[in-house]
Structure formats: C-alpha cells, structure tokens
C-alpha cells in the first residue's frame, strides 16, 4: 500500500465529511493507526473498504461531539498544492455545489471520483448495494451538472 497516496485520498474524504482540515487530519491519522494495528482486514480481503469504514466511523463520532467553531469557516483552505488561481476558483465552485448535495450523494461521489474507489468497496463502506451506489452516482452527477450549469449561466 502506498501510504502517501492513501493518506491524501483519505484526507480528502474526511475533509469532505467534516469540513475542517485539522480535524480531518486528526481522523486520518487515527484511522491509519487503527488500521495498521489491526490485521483483521486480511480476513476480509478488502483493506481499502476496511480503512474507509474506520475513518467513516471516526468522522461520525467526531460530528456527534459538541460543535466547536471551525477555523475553516473563517479562513480559506490551505494552499491547494500548486493549483493555479483559475483551477482553484473552479474547485471552490465545485465544493460549494457539492455542499448543496445531500450527504449520502456527496459521500458516494467523493469516494468514487475523488478517491477513485471501486463501486464494490463503496458499497461495503456505505452499507448499500452496488445497484444503489450506481443509481446514486448517476443521480448525484446529474444534479451536480445542473448546479454547475446554473452557476455558469
């Protein structure tokens, strides 16, 4: 497993879930430590699904905690890894559109297209059937397209 690559992907997922980079990074590191300590994923044969399930549960726990004011609400995202201003603007629009989507659709879209996870693994992480994942992906993508088209007009 390429730790760096998976770390980046998981961070994007947790950041989407929590909308707070610092908290997302805490969750990612905790998830990785739990994942590396436990070897039970070997029995399941789906280590990515196992890792994401740990992170997802940790995010849910985090969201249940009493709400504290997030710094990310006041400040922009940290340096986005060398993107040019135009791309960064597009990303902001896209993130804003994603925020408007229902939680379950947003999660599936990010897992599929941002983290490039397989539909089978998404189904395992979210507890849905593969068919339901496919259906939600199509629905989410078309909603996102409509929103972005609306913004462009």
């Amino acid at each position, binding site marked *: 497993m390429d730790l760096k690559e998976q770390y980046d992907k998981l961070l994007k997922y947790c950041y989407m879930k929590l909308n707070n980079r610092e908290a997302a990074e805490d969750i990612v590191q905790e998830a990785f430590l739990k994942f590396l300590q436990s070897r039970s994923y070997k029995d399941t044969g789906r280590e990515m699904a196992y890792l994401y399930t740990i992170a997802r549960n940790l995010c849910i726990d985090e969201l249940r905690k009493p709400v504290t004011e997030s710094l990310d609400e006041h400040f922009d995202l940290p340096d986005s890894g060398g993107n040019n201003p135009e791309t960064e603007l597009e990303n902001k629009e896209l993130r804003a559109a994603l925020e408007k989507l229902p939680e379950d659709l947003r999660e599936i879209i990010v897992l599929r*297209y*941002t983290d490039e996870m397989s539909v089978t693994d998404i189904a395992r992480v979210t507890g849905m059937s593969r068919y339901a994942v496919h259906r939600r992906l199509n629905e989410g993508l078309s909603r996102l397209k409509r929103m972005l088209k609306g913004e462009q007009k």
Partner: protein
Amino acid sequence: MTDREIKNMLKNAYQTAPTEREKAFIRANEQRSLRLFDVLKLEMKYMGVKCILSGLLFCTGLIAVAKAGDLQTVRYISSLFPLMALMLTELLGKTEKYGMSELEASTRFSLKFIRLVRMLLLGSISLGIICAFSLAVKNTVPFGLITLLGFMGVPYLANVFGSLLITRKWHSEKNYIGCIICTAVSCALPSVLKFLLKPENISPLYPALVLLIVSSAVIRESILFIRESGELAWN
C-alpha cells in the same frame, strides 16, 4: 460542462498541499504499511543487477557444459554449487563487514527484516539456479529428477547450513575462515559420495529424505540466524 469534465474536476476538489504533520506521520509509519513484497523489490535494487546477471550467466554456463559433457561432468558440477552458498553468506555478512549495522538499524527497516529479505532473495535465486540446472540436464543422466536434485542440492544446502551456523557463532576472521573451510568440505562432498554411492543404483527415496532433512536444518538455522543476529551486538 460534460460528465468527463466534472469527473476530472472532482479529482482535485479537496486537494490540499501536504503539511509537515502529514510528512512526519508518513515517515514514521511507512515501514508498517510495507509488505514483504515491497521490501523484496527494494532489496533487489540494493543487490544490484550485476549479482543477478552473474548468477544467470553462471547457470547458463553450467548447463552448456553439462549438456556437452558426460555423466561425470554433471557429477563434478554439483561440487560448484556450494560456492553459491558462500556468496550468499558473504552478502549477508556485508552489513557487518562494512560496519553498516548502525546505519541500517537507523533506517526504516529493522535488521531482522533486512536479513530475512536478503536470505529469501538470495536463497530463491540459488535454488532457482539449481532447479533450472537439474531440469536442463535431466535427460543427460541415467537417474530420476529427485535423485538429481538430491545430488545437486544437498552440498549447497549443507554449505548454507554450515555457513549460517558459523556466522551465528563466530565473528570476523574466525567466521571467514570457518565459512571457507565449510565451503571446501561441501564442495568435496559430491566427490566423496561418488565413491560411496552410485546414484543410478539407489532408490529416489533416500536422496529425497536427505534433501528434506538438510532443508529442515537450513530452515531452522535461518530462523535462529534471523532471531539472534538481528539484534545489535552492543545492545
């Protein structure tokens, strides 16, 4: 805006630059996420292409000689295989020879892990050569493959066992001299056996049994070698 464009944009939607904290975490946990196969790939680079190529050349040369020669040549060639075991022990001793223990221990891998991987790599290359050779000359000799493997593999494995035992017990000069003597004895083993046994007359059960016993001894010695010499001498 097409679906493809949206999908491409989504790839970087939550992209952020790596923080110091992220880099430190990855550095600290990289080894734990590595699998044996990843380290094997890294060690292959450490060993170098020269070592692997010379092994293949050695094997090809032996096969060519054996194919052209008679049964006697094949018998004598088995005397050369223990030399590969000496090469293996020498490469394993590289860490100690060049005083690299401290440096290697400070890397992301433990010494035990490094030794295990090297032994796996070198052992599989050597055994691969012996098997390839045995298969290639199978039709040249008047006895079965198991007997042939026994006569080719036992001197090599005996030398691996002896050299590992010596390396585990002795260090520095004593170790080198011991390993050379052990190699010489192992090289002479096929010639001694030649006077005692005729491979074409014995049942394949005996070579298989001897091969099994020597292999078990090598596996046991390898485990002890990794377990004991993995720790630093000054600890």
